[in-house]
């Protein structure tokens, strides 16, 4: 695999153009670009996932999510098989607004893809003084993933739990809890899934690891798979307008 080294700012600009080109102005394309950028800066393959996502989602298709239930301290969404990337911020917005009104919110999203794209949004909770936790199960791998963040923390703690008795039918929703109080996400998870004490937790990426990977990229830039870089550039270039003598008049000469 060949890599190209690019700067953080170059990737940001490239992703902004790529998202603007692919999603148009009907979505907050800068926010989508921010999520992909954050994942890539923190070694979570944002660019690779983005390219997979847009391969499966036709350009400018409806990417909204359905609000299935809106009860006290509870929101349920149905994402109709789409990636969380497109709606992670809007779901976070809804959860945060509910938290402000009701001091607590448990949001769940069913029928989703790419749950890891919720991670950068957890930071919005901590910035606003909330505890937050997100978790989801991956039955085919026999594990669940949990990410927690506390107020003022810059990064979440991202953990993986090996669960012995998880069957392929146990595919859970993506759960997002926001509270003024500390959340024991593991307890919440095991309570909901009724498989108490049959797990082994490993720390997948610590808050410190997240910070270190970002610091490393400030100094050294990022190495992006050349194929991905080319694909991304092709998408981004679609926002450019063909040059002509007439168009050159618009540049002032």
């Amino acid at each position: 695999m060949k890599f190209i080294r690019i700067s953080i700012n170059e990737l940001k600009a490239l992703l902004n153009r790529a998202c603007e080109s692919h999603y148009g102005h009907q979505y907050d394309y800068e926010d989508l670009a921010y999520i992909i950028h954050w994942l890539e800066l923190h070694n979570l393959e944002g660019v690779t996932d983005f390219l997979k996502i847009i391969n499966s989602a036709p350009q400018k298709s409806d990417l909204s999510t359905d609000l299935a239930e809106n009860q006290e301290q509870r929101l349920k969404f149905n994402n109709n098989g789409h990636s969380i990337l497109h709606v992670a911020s809007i779901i976070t917005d809804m959860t945060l607004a509910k938290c402000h009104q009701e001091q607590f919110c448990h949001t769940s999203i069913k029928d989703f893809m790419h749950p890891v794209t919720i991670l950068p949004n957890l930071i919005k909770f901590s910035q606003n003084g909330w505890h937050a936790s997100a978790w989801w199960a991956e039955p085919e791998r026999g594990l669940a993933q949990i990410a927690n963040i506390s107020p003022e923390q810059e990064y979440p703690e991202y953990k993986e739990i090996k669960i012995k008795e998880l069957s392929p039918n146990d595919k859970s929703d993506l759960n997002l809890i926001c509270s003024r109080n500390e959340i024991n996400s593991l307890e919440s998870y095991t309570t909901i899934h009724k498989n108490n004490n049959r797990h082994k937790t490993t720390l997948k990426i610590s808050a410190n690891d997240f910070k270190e990977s970002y610091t490393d990229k400030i100094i050294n830039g990022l190495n992006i798979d050349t194929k991905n870089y080319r694909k991304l550039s092709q998408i981004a270039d679609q926002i450019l307008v063909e040059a002509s003598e007439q168009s050159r008049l618009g540049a002032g000469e």
Partner: protein
Amino acid sequence: MHNLSQEITEKREHLRDPSTVMDLKRLGSFYPYKLSFMRKIIRKISREKWTINLSVFNLDKDGFGEAIYEIKTPKNNYHFVVFADFLDSNLRTDRVIAEAWDMTVTLRHGSFNQNELKILRQNVPLQEQGRMPSNCIVLSRANKSSRNFKYVIDQLSSGEQPSIKRINEVGYLYRTTAVYGSGKFGMADWEKVRLHYNDFSEPFSAEMFSCFLIRQFSLDQTDHIASMRAPETAVKLNDDIKRYIGIGNATGLGMAPFLIKHPLLINSWIEKREFALAHIISSTKPDNKKLNEFSLLVKRASTHLQEISTENNAQKKINKDASNDLTSIAQWLTKERSEIKDWRQLIKYVTNTYGIETQEIINTILIEVYPKEALAIEENEIIDEKYELTPEMSLADLKNIIESKYKWALNYDFKSKDADTVFWYRSEEKMEPRLGDRNIDNGEEKEILIGIARAVEQCYSTMNSLTPEIKINTVAEFVFAFPAHRQIIRRMQTMSKTTYGEIQANLLDKNMLPIHLLRCKLSFFGVGKFDPKSRLWVRNTMFQGAPITRDIGKEYADDWFFPVMPNEKLSKENEIH
């Protein structure tokens, strides 16, 4: 540490209203001032006594080859690497789409070896097509002035100094056509520069410093070519003339989207200038000394404006009118001197009597007269450019923000003939920003989201179209239903906490003049002598009157403000053979 935010809050009543300051035409009347970035970097290198030495100067008799300047600051060392190449005059263009230049340069951190120099040699001359090492901070290029370069060398080789008047017509020997930083083409990210190369932790200071050294190279190269051509007769360019020679610049639409995309940063720049002005007007009194200094600068500014050479008739008139206004103001000051007890009297008189160009010159001079007050807020605050949504905000509160802070945006009728005529886009030619007419040009579907007023108006219309049965109470619920408005809402929510930042103009209007945007940004850089070539691009001069490298370390008078032609006789007496 000085807490600017707190002081601004205390002085808020003295600050000018954003509807006055953020008017596009007024922004386009701003002049370089005490805290412009070029002034700041020159103060810094003088104060810290940086050393700048030519460590490599491998130029042939025609001035082609390589030069390396070694820069030592109290904590770091850098190199400024120059590649001077032959350029066919047919290929010489100011446009960003050019592919070859007379001079290409980079500013890099640390020492380096021959192998690294080879990498630079392979990449720097390619500019946008090259890949730069991550310890490079700035990449730039410049072209010779066809009017001045050959003339100056001819004069020097024949033992004569160039005519100051002739120099003044252009003001420089080279003109930069792009100055890149902030991680472009693989270079160091701004965050890295800020944290690790903190000699350049002020925004654009590395870029400005590079322009300063391009100017220095243009002077060194000129002396070199003249001495190689006629070793027996050649003289070196006189130091006074060297100081009067700046570095040219050509700026097009590329700068305009920056001002729109970074409103928090723009807010900090403008707030600082407005705070300095408000602070000086409200807390100082015009005594004899200050009135004398003020009068001298008014006269100097008048002369400076008279001396500007431009073929643009509109700019000629602006300069002539402003110069005449300043002469009148100088006379008024002499006549009313004993009656002037408060700077507010002066400001009131100027505001009531003269146009905005003159008003802004007077504001700039007033700040110049009070260096202590201005320099107290010199240090820039770190601006965290985040435009976060406040989802819990009620829709009613958002509506209040729009109706108060964005009232200006609701004043345009986007259904009218001219209000939505223009669209901004990026060309496939080096992503150059261009303007299109919706009725004529292709590419409307790819327009850049730059029409803030239109986006605000669209959001406001959608909010007003909601019927009572649609239960949307919060911003979160609104953006859930209408995701297209999320971006403009988080911008409005963020900017509502600031005073300045939003340029109060419809940038999609047929009659909008982008040149005002360019001039505003250039004034904060410290650029002067604007010479518009159309409504879309402008030539200008940087560092005219500034010290040259041999001045660094000597006593520094921070006084290269509104530079005027040096006395020709004096310059001849100071000739160096």
